[in-house]
């Protein structure tokens, strides 16, 4: 069982409205030393794969196909050997409310 962290960020050439808004919010709160904020996604994926290589390959595949949109986003994958305790897998496997079947 591996725990993969996927970081999805907007490419540098892409305008980041969320980042700008957060920066504005931080300035308004008095955090003037903030120069830049970029907002991205952080996905923690628990996979049942035999070894690290497989796990990484699978997760990179997921990122290419679905998790990141190459037109605007970059991604990075990091792996940890054990699933973190705070993320127990639920009682049943099926997704809630479906998924792209």
């Amino acid at each position: 069982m591996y725990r993969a962290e996927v970081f999805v960020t907007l490419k540098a050439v892409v305008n980041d409205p969320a980042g700008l808004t957060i920066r504005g919010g931080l300035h308004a709160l008095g955090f003037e030393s903030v120069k830049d904020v970029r907002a991205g996604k952080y996905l923690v994926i628990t996979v049942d794969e035999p070894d690290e290589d497989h796990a990484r390959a699978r997760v990179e595949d997921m990122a290419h196909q679905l998790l990141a949109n190459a037109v605007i986003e970059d991604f990075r994958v990091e792996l940890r050997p054990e699933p973190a305790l705070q993320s127990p897998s639920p009682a049943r496997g099926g997704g809630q409310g479906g998924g792209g079947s």
Partner: protein
Amino acid sequence: MAATIGRLALAAVALNQDEYRGILGALGRAPNELELGMLGALWSEHCSYKTSKSLLRQLPTEGPYVLQGPGENAGAVDIGDGLAVVFKIESHNHPSAIEPYQGAATGVGGILRDVFAMGARPIAILNALRFGPLEGGRNRHLFQGVVAGIGGYGNCFGCPTVGGEVYFDSGYDDNPIVNAMCVGLVAHQRLRHAKADRTGDVVLLVGADTGRDGIHGATFASVEMDERSASRRPAVQVGNPFLEKLLCEACLQLNELDGVTAIQDLGAAGLTSAASELAHRGGRGIDIDVDRVSRRELGMSAYEVMLSESQERMLVVVRPEAETAARQIFDHFELHADRVGNITSTGRIRIRDAGAVAADLPLKTLVDGVPLRSPAAAFGDKPPSPVLPSIEEPEAVLLDLIARPNLRSRRPIYRTYDHQVQDNTVIGPGFDAALLRVPGTHKALALTTDGNPWYVALDPYEGTKAAVAEAARNITCTGARPIAVTNCLNFGNPERPWVFGQLQESVRGLADACRAFDLPVVSGNVSLYNETSERNIPPTPVIGMVGLLDDLSARCPAGFQEDGDLVFLLGETHEELAGSEYLRMLGARVEGRPPMVSLEMERRLQAGLLDSIGRGVLRCAHDVAEGGLLIALAESALFGGRGLRCPSIVGHVSREAFYFGESQGRVIVSVAPRRVPELQKLMAHHHVPLYAIGVVGGEDFQVGSDIRVPLDTLRAAWETPF
């Protein structure tokens, strides 16, 4: 049998010793922990209405068109053509105070479920919001979060948010009011009742998995918030509007199926409340096997499963032979359904856990057994009206007033709500009442929520009457006839005599006004204990009202339509400034006697208004509300993008009261010059006073020699952002 129980154990479920003794008497034994938890939840104020129930009995709930009054998930009223309008309003104040986005979002989710549980398709959402002034404390954070949450849920779900109201007052500092109303449509024969009345039926739990969400949320909403509530704090529920949309579509399809006995949403007190109310309404019993409930987390106890308030779940009760067909529908929407139990003839709820009976309670005790409370009531005496300062510069006052957070344009708020989806919105948010076409007919529904908090604070009886009158007036201004009422009673801690006194007076005002207008109250909600560290919110009844317009082409807009039209004020102006936004702007304390409503005058006004709109006499009608006459005139000018010229206008009251007082029972109208005699005749017939105000046209808003502002200047002030 244990005669006493630790105070802490009782406090944890918010019951008192008397109530506990009642439980012992009814059961003939001590309840176990699970049973006590279930009793605590259903006997909470939130679920049992133990403090308000006897007051609510005063409300008129019947009428020739009422198909379903209070007691179900939502009320239903016949609108002809074989159709019923289904609606209810509900509070989500406590959750929104803790986590504004999710609190408001799940409030919308909950009220949507109440409506589609009745078999109706939700066609509109409204909301009534109150916050402390934006400059203070967490208020802006709460305001932004709540507005985003309402939009976030409704927009994703695909139900238009067409109306509501937002007021700011320091009485709501850190203790916001978030009420959501939902309106749906259903064919009569498809109207559902959440009543499981057939032994042997199968109980399906559909939708989200059950997690440790909001355990004891119901109890939590029934005690005041203090430092202790941090530890009692339920994990905040995160809503999933996407899943709710699928649930809704599935329930609507299910509703077409033979063999479906009942559909019930899971709200406060989760599975416990849904299961026992369903079975009790049908005069049956119910067995639930908690092992069969899909969970989001490992290691959940029966207690947690039974009391979880996870969102986006429904109970569906079907004949055994209909289960397969029901499951086909769930599969189509990729929804998970667990068969969690069945309907029995025992009159009891029995919970099984790992094969053993974990709880076994008579439904009569659980659902109906709570002793009603009748706390002491005290009534404030009414202080004299404040001394009035006189206006030096009416124009500056007007510009300042219209830019006030309580009066300025709500567009920055409602443009973040999808108010058009479903293609029925004829008049959207921003006017007196929203108007939605009833698909397939020439009819329309007019929808509004109202509740001026300051009038109620000054006099709960008069203020609540005024809220009903104003709601009816808003509906009438569109040309529609008010047909029924829902209400949300948001009050402080009823154990404080003055708070209970406010509640008592407010309900009396509600009942009297509804009777006077012949309006049945078909649903509602009571939210008590809105108290933080001994600070109670101002008494806040919110009226939700639905009106019916038989012929959509006879509708009336709120803005000036044609240059040269003549503008009149209908109704009587009195020397009434107490409770006005004008006085608050001048920093005066809120004191005195609020504007009084003469129910008789109000009825005549609305009859006259409907008559003249029905005959096509009026070009526009707009209710005079907060801010008074000049604000109403300015709004109609801004709505229509047309100026106004008034010769100097004076009533028989002071200039302050005439310009900025908030006397009730008034409407401004515009008429084409040639139809003025007709209007005069109609008003004479209905005994409604009529005052000539001015003429539509030009680029300016001009009142005698007091005011002359370009419309653009006025608009800039009105459109001050939040």
